[in-house]
């Protein structure tokens, strides 16, 4: 009965990973190939053709497959170029956050004592900011730009990684196999790499893949307020902000940019969820038996 459940869970997890990863890879591919895919320059204005609806609707023009915005820029091309920022933010931020958060968490949980206490205090203080507020304030201090967007997002989100991974490390530390390894003569580094990291790896992987979606969201929030990347770079967030201003006349660009973000976020979550199901120790145990 149990085996049956584990097999089901494995299959469910694999399905989600495949769907999620496929969409995310498509986004990356689009970002890389943007110059060849986009029919227009994303910033090219055509003031005679503003707020066009998508081509298949009345008044649409196949030169602008998804219509134009209030400055007559091609929504389709902007969407494609917007994938570039999404792809960069969605790769660099998760990796950076994971490295910073997980390293501090494992050190903090393993070493304990005063180091652990001060880290916990720091995380507490960090967490008393609503995440949006902290990232906005950070962007005001750092001034806009892609690098700073990445930096600000990592600076805000490492605490979440840190707190979750630390508590899981603390849970592992209570298990006697850590003491047993120490008695067996393992070094501190050995315990951290052989006993702690494998134990928290499933959580790290899940958190990191979910962070892909969060990074894209944070970028769009910052764009929405107007403190994101350098002006002139199209992002999905900028498109939302522009689209919201003209929502009464032409909701199209808004709908497309929101959908792009939602789909990316959903895929990231599916990937994370799927990996969580697959990395569940009960399931990986089963895979081991089969292997």
């Amino acid at each position, binding site marked *: 009965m149990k085996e049956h459940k584990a097999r089901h869970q494995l299959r469910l997890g694999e399905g989600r990973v495949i769907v999620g990863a496929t969409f995310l890879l498509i986004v990356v591919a689009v970002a890389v190939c943007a110059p060849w895919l986009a029919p227009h320059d994303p910033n090219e204005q055509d003031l005679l053709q503003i707020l066009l609806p998508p081509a298949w609707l009345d008044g649409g023009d196949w030169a602008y497959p998804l219509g134009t915005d209030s400055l007559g820029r091609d929504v389709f091309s902007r969407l494609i170029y917007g994938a570039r920022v999404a792809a960069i933010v969605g790769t660099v931020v998760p990796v950076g956050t994971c490295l910073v958060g997980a390293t501090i968490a494992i050190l903090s949980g393993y070493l304990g004592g005063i180091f652990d206490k001060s880290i916990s205090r720091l995380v507490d*203080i960090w967490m*008393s900011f609503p995440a*949006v507020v902290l990232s*906005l304030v950070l962007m005001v*201090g750092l001034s806009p730009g892609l690098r700073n967007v990445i930096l600000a997002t990592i600076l805000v989100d490492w605490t979440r990684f840190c707190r979750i991974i630390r508590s899981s490390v603390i849970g592992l530390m209570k298990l006697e196999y850590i003491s047993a390894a120490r008695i067996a003569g393992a070094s501190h580094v050995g315990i951290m790499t052989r006993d702690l990291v494998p134990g928290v790896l499933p959580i790290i992987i899940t958190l990191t893949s979910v962070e892909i979606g969060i990074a894209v969201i944070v970028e769009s929030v910052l764009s*929405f307020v107007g403190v994101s990347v350098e002006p002139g770079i199209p992002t999905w967030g900028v498109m939302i902000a522009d689209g919201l201003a003209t929502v009464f006349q032409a909701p199209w660009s808004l709908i497309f940019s*929101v959908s792009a*973000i939602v789909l990316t976020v959903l895929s990231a*979550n599916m990937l994370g*969820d799927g990996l969580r199901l697959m990395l569940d120790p009960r399931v990986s145990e089963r895979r081991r038996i089969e292997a």
Partner: protein
Amino acid sequence: MSDEAQAPIQPWPTGQISGAGWAHLRAFGYLGLKALRNVLAIALQLFAVSIVIFFILRIIPADPLSMLTPGNATHEDAEQIRHAYGLDRPIYEQYFMWLGAALQGDLGNSIQAREPVTRLILAALPMTIELAFCGLGLGVLLGALLGLTAFWYRGRPVERVGETIASLAQSIPDFLWGISFVLLFGLWLNVLPFIGPIDPSMIVERRSGFLLIDTLLAGRWDAFGDRLLHLVLPATALAMIKVALVMRVLRSSLIEAYQDEYVNAARLRGVGEGAILFRHALRNAAIPTVALIGVQAAQTFGGTLLIESIYSLPGMGNLLITAIRTHDLPLIQGISLTYCAIVLLVNALVDLSYLWLNPRLRRQ
């Protein structure tokens, strides 16, 4: 074995705690002490937070002066501002000047509005609190109902469907829910208002600042109804994630509580399923849910920021966004500090409610 670190087992607890009344008294005394400690902790944390904010806004930027001066300022203006903000003094002095004033309730003047920051914040705060309260309340209420339903039908298709919808609702951030609702219910179906806090033609005297209360105080039922209608979309947008989270957490902690031995023991005494759920399991299962509500209460205030902007509500979020767009540094500092103060306060309240829910914590 860890249990050896705990208190020795007293075969006869006589004389330890005598009678329930005393125990309750002690619990309340403990509660008071705990509250005092919380207040102290909040003060300390706010102090730390103020340093962080100050550091980010005054030290990281290469040229705080240019951030402080509006674009159209003359050289004299700039000098004046430099002096007014003490930028010609050492950084720690600047900080303590700011802190000293802040402790007296003076967060400086807004550069753009040329009004005290405190007054601007106090004017905007009720709108934000009202929105956050409604959003969170709606989320918890719906989430708890759905969580109980999902638990009751555990293992059946109903639960699977609920789970799928919940994971969808949880994935999408609240500001995207806000935009989607505007598009769907506001523009397309055109069934609900989505601009402003209330119909502009309904003018109600401002007393508490909370529109729901002010309309009632004025006896204007029509305005109250209109306010509720205006609240539906933004509050629901804020509630979506909470509904999903509360539902999932409540369901899973109920499932966990049902695996506890005391549920089995109650069943073996013949206690009915309804009593087991509501009397035995729910109170224990509520503890993680309350913890979640605490975290989410803080998140909700962050969420109001963008929702206010989308729905043109004159709250703190809109104020902050305007301040950021106009580089109004004193206002940005003041508002972010206020947000943190609210979050810390909410967390402290949640902490106290644990004690009420979980008798185990009342012991020292």
